[in-house]
């Protein structure tokens, strides 16, 4: 397994560079927005990746509640954390795109608002993990993750009704997109998914190691009774 990781890193690096080339050079320039539209190739794949990671978090949390395996808990933690990172990218690149195209940094339209709320929910999840004492964290976090995931349809539904008359900036109408644009988009999505997978993997190994070290510390303090016992 240790040999596979560097190979994957190299492959993902090549894929990301190819995707960058596709996004900046091969994909045709959009007529009305110009080059700014190329932000799309980073913005949208990041959003998809973040949603997938949040979904993985939901699945892993359910699995933990049923089976109580520590692995499921680590997967839930890792996917939420990396998902928040990708969601942050979405929320940062969105306004940078909106500014030249719509003339404003932020608008409370449906997609922006619901992504922000999603981000808030998962940040609060990470807060809970950080602030609860280690033994109880997995169960509490899993319960929160389930509630948070159930909240998502309500968020979309309510904000959809709240902001129905918003402009459809992304892929307006659908179907009329240039195939080279679609190609660049999908390649970028593939590249970012691979990248996210690698980040998750490293974070997973880190968490595993962290738990082993914590365990070792606990064992050490048990085996050496002449410290705090006196």
């Amino acid at each position, binding site marked *: 397994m240790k040999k596979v990781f560097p190979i994957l890193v190299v492959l993902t690096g090549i894929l990301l560079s190819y995707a960058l080339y596709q996004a900046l050079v091969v994909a045709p320039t959009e007529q009305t927005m110009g080059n700014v539209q190329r932000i799309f190739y*980073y*913005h949208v794949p990041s959003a998809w990746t973040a949603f997938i990671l949040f979904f993985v978090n939901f699945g892993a949390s359910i699995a933990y509640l049923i089976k109580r395996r520590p692995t499921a808990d680590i997967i839930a933690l890792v996917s939420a954390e990396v998902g928040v990172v990708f969601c942050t990218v979405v929320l940062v690149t969105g306004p940078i795109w909106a500014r030249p195209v719509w003339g404003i940094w932020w608008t409370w339209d449906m997609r922006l608002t619901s992504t922000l709320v999603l981000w808030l929910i998962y940040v609060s999840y990470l807060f809970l993990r950080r602030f609860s004492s280690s033994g109880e964290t997995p169960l509490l976090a899993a319960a929160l993750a389930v509630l948070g995931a159930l909240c998502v349809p309500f968020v979309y539904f309510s904000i959809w009704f709240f902001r129905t008359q918003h402009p459809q900036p992304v892929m307006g109408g659908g179907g009329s997109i240039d195939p080279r644009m679609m190609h660049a988009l999908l390649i970028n999505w593939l590249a970012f998914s691979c990248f996210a997978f690698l*980040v998750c993997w490293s974070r997973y190994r880190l968490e595993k190691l962290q738990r082993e070290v914590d365990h070792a510390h606990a064992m050490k303090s048990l085996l050496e009774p002449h410290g705090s016992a006196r």
Partner: protein
Amino acid sequence: MRQNPYLFAAYAATWIIHITYLITIVRRYSRLQREIEGLKK
């Protein structure tokens, strides 16, 4: 690319966020390695 600061800013911001996160992972990892060295003694 040169005439479009927004495009550059968005791509740069994306990588800055990702690299910052990766750096925190690497730093935590190296701190753990040191802790393991300490535990082994």
